[in-house]
């Protein structure tokens, strides 16, 4: 009898752990399998190359996670990447020194925040669903990027600026360093600061959040500004790595970002999500992209496989919630 009970308890303990760290397990399995199959997959060079790729849409995914946790969404981040990239490139082109580099990064994030501010205002004060508000912004930001750049790539060759994307600190690529810093900051904001708690409360039950004195409008505004600023940052990072700004950059990145968040267990219903798990989600996508590429899988098939994985993750999430 007692044995039975403790066995039961152990079983539930396992399922709980599996629920919590299941995606991490899948990431490890995926990585191990690919490492066995492909020579050099587990090499430092390859790992850093994956991380570099992940760092950019991974940063966007963190911003998107905030939006999704409030029960919203941000579809505009890919377009904001493009806008930020042409703005950053036009500032930095032909200049020297780190001063202009910092200015260009700052400007890119500022432009992103403005887009976010508009998204947030329309959502919070205009009471338009964020899906619609950010869908509009997605089209507009891309349009403005085309306008600013005349539809052509803008050269961003400045040694200081491109050194961010090329350089490394203690062997770790600059972009990865930025990703880690952003992730740590955002993780603390989300899990330990009252701002983060308010974000969860809004997603958990907007009426309750209001009753509990949360300033829902201001909080939503902050969330979308943050998401925009992070998309802007990703745009600057991409520009520095590509030596150019381009109005076609970031195409469909918003979908990769949302996928990363969702694979990481962020619930589209709101109220559930975390930065570390969002990173795991982004890494799964990154590892998979790289692996499928190196295996020489047809790009069309790659799309199909990616789609299936996203749907699988959402199904898993629904299952978890339904199960009693």
């Amino acid at each position, binding site marked *: 009898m007692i044995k039975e*009970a403790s066995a*039961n*308890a152990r079983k*539930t303990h396992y*399922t*709980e752990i599996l629920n919590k760290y299941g995606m991490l397990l899948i990431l490890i399995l995926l990585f191990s399998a690919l490492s066995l199959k492909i020579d050099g997959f587990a090499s430092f060079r390859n790992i850093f190359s994956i991380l570099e790729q992940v760092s950019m849409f991974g940063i966007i995914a963190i911003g998107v996670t905030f939006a999704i946790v409030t029960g919203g969404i941000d579809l505009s981040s890919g377009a904001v990447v493009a806008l930020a990239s042409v703005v950053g490139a036009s500032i930095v082109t032909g200049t020297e020194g780190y001063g202009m580099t910092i200015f260009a990064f700052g400007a890119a994030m500022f432009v992103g925040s403005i887009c976010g501010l508009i998204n947030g205002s329309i959502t919070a004060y205009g009471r338009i669903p964020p899906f619609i508000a950010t869908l509009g912004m997605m089209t507009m930001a891309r349009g403005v990027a085309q306008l600013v750049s005349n539809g052509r790539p803008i050269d961003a060759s400045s040694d200081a600026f491109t050194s961010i994307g090329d350089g490394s600190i203690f062997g770790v690529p600059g972009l990865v360093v930025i990703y880690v810093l952003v992730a740590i900051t955002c993780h*603390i904001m989300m899990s*330990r*600061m*009252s701002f983060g*708690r308010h974000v*969860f*409360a809004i997603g*958990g*039950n907007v*009426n*309750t*959040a*209001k*009753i*509990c*004195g*949360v*300033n829902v409008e201001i909080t939503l505004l902050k969330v979308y500004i943050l998401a925009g600023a992070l998309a802007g940052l990703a745009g600057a990072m991409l520009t520095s790595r590509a030596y150019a700004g381009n109005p076609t950059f970031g195409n469909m990145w918003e979908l990769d970002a949302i996928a990363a968040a969702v694979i990481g267990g962020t*619930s589209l*219903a709101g*109220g*559930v999500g975390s930065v570390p798990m969002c990173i795991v989600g982004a890494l799964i996508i990154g590892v998979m992209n790289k692996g499928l590429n190196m295996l020489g899988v047809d790009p069309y098939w790659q799309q199909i496989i990616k789609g299936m994985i996203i749907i699988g993750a959402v199904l898993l999430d629904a299952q978890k*919630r339904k199960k*009693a």
Partner: protein
Amino acid sequence: MKSKTNSITLLFSNFTQLIKTITLMTNSDCILEMINVSKTFPGVKALDKVNLSIRKGSIHALMGENGAGKSTLMKILYGLYTPDAGGEIFFDGKPFNPKAPIDAIHTGLAMVPQEISPSANLSVAANFYLGREIKKGILMDQSAMNEKTNDILKELGIPMSVETLMQNVSVAKAQLLAIATAVSYDAKLIIMDEPTTALTESEVHQLYRIVKKVQERGIAIIYISHKLGEVFELSDEVSVIRDGEYIGTKKTTDITKEELINMMVGRDMDEMFQREDVIIGETLLEVRNLSLPGKFHDINFSVRKGEIFGIAGLVGAGRSEVVEALFGYKPAESGEIHLHGKKIEIHKPCDAIKHRIGFVTEDRKLTGLMLNMSVTDNMIMPELLPYEKHHLISEELARDVANSMKDQLRIKTPTVETIIGNLSGGNQQKVLIARWLLLEPEILILDEPTKGIDIGAKAEIYKLIVELARLGKAIIIVSSEMLELLSLSDRIMVMAEGREVGIVDRDNATQEVILEMAAGGDVPSQEEQELESEYQTQGVA
């Protein structure tokens, strides 16, 4: 050798089968039999070998403290949860293992859940036939559905137009409609999980009438309730579960209230709450000419330190709207609020919180719970500052505070990290009360605070309220439970149709006085009156 043992086993199992069949035959007057039913959730044994038999056509009350396992047991019957292996359920003598509500409904078991959620944008008749629309060819036969719905409603004596949109139907009517729907499924057994928590006294009586009518059709009813009065008024038999264990079943006529309470809580307890007096101080809150067009008009009252101020009225009288305005959730359009003799502005809940006003809202689901978040997170929400160290929330501190609240209010939950959606209804309510106690409010507004709370816990909460009053806090309490208001309040304001009818002192307040005042403005709508008289002339009602 081997074959011999085999045949013996076979014989033996046949024998047990036979015994079982015989037992079943002797119990053939039972519509439902549950034998050794258990249910384990992660970290909780919600039900432990429960036995329950329901006689055909009887009203069977099911009682027990919050978290005892009543709703879980019913959800198993309704196919929402799968029980642990080892138990057996028989419905009308046949094994019964519903996998989904549809199985239960087809077998003849229907449920009116604790919280009903009809499709608000559809008509009464459309809701009635949702999922089993009557069709003519490939099109829906709207008029046939209207007609049949109307027939059943008439038979049960529920006067209303079947084309009304559900969103315009009161909670009480929606409840009655849910019962009518269950009847129309040709159910042999209907489960009602705390059907009266959202109803006022007069509505409760209407519900009784309907329940009796349902019984007259030979339908058995399992009736879950925390209210002793209801159980003694309605039920033929009553069963008690405590901590997931089956305690016993008694004929209602063979048991006294005291015995029943003892069965439930395992000790003797006084049903009536006797409050002690508290010294009442100076005026703390004053409300002048508060108005919100369409909701309430010209409300004036004041509450003093240490005073418990009740607000009575029928559903729709505007009681909740007044307190919502006071808290800034749905602010009033005109009027003044004074605190400590100074005029204050409350436009948003955060203004009220700043003035240390707390507010336990009426609707748990809608404005209370953050369902997919933990007990701790739900508790600490209104004010995070006390849990912050260097601008960061300390999980440890929050957990400690939540744990102390859990002990103080005896909240039944495996840990304070548990997702609140997994707690029983009454325990969720306790968490919400804890939330506002943690704010250490000067003024605490409670809207239906004991909704779904068991007798023992109720007394605890009453004690807590009086204790707060003793500490010089002002309490405003809205309740549809007359006894609760009468036994707690120093003064009671009675409202009718958004107007303030008057304020009565504790000494002058009786059930009759208040009901009369509350009915002062209560005129049924034109349509309802017509329907009612129509029924009378047809001799149906």
